[in-house]
């Protein structure tokens, strides 16, 4: 088997009906993570926290759970099935921070852990914050006109 044939063979083995199956699991697991988020949101609001704080606490809790699951290697197991279902929720963002942090431990805590934890989170923060600043400039200019 040459390289090309092997690739084809491997692809057939890995995914009998990739599109539909991937889509189903992404929807299911992504949906369940959001449902868990809703339960946390309701719990914090039941405890009497203000609405905005409830959203922040829900994010922090989901990030914590994702860090825990990533630390014991379970998040990546789930991600194999869930694809975007574990990527798109904020737990995926947390996983993108925690996973390289653990993986690059060998290279030291400063340039290994400290630098690599921003490998994916860095671009997300850079473009997210920059987009919000552009939006802010436009909002500000409109407000003083």
């Amino acid at each position: 088997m040459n390289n090309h044939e092997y690739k084809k063979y491997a692809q057939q083995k890995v995914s009998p009906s990739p599109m539909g199956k991937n889509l189903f699991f992404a929807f299911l697991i992504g949906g369940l993570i959001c449902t868990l988020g809703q339960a946390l949101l309701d719990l914090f609001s039941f405890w009497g926290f203000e609405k905005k704080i409830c959203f922040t606490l829900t994010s922090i809790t989901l990030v914590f759970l994702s860090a825990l699951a990533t630390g014991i290697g379970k998040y990546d197991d789930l991600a194999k099935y869930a694809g975007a279902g574990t990527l798109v929720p904020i737990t995926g963002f947390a996983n993108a921070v925690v996973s390289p942090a653990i993986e690059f431990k060998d290279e030291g805590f400063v340039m290994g852990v400290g630098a690599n934890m921003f490998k994916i989170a860095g671009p997300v923060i850079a473009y997210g914050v920059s987009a919000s600043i552009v939006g802010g400039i436009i909002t500000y200019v409109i407000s003083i006109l």
Partner: protein
Amino acid sequence: MMYLKAFIVGGTLCAIGQILIDKTKLTPARILVSYVVAGVILGFFGVYDKLIDFAGAGASVPLTGFGNTLANGVKEAIAKDGLTGIFTGGLTASAGGIGAAIFFGLIASVFGRSSEK
């Protein structure tokens, strides 16, 4: 009812990400960046808050919700502090999630072990 709406809207946002991965070969990092920027844009137009009112965590938990938090933070900070708010609002509003990810990431790296080895 809110749980069902959170499930369906959250699941749909993830399914769209899956279609992007399968059809366009966008890398996960690019997907996350696109979602956040899309959330910022929808947030500035005030559209995303309506989706959160409808679906709760189904809209706030996906990374578009993170983008919306950035946009709302900037809008509120401008209303409160004027010009400075353009720069302070985004990170202030999103500090909880980012701070938690960094801190728990460090803790996990102390105790966790790489799954590759």
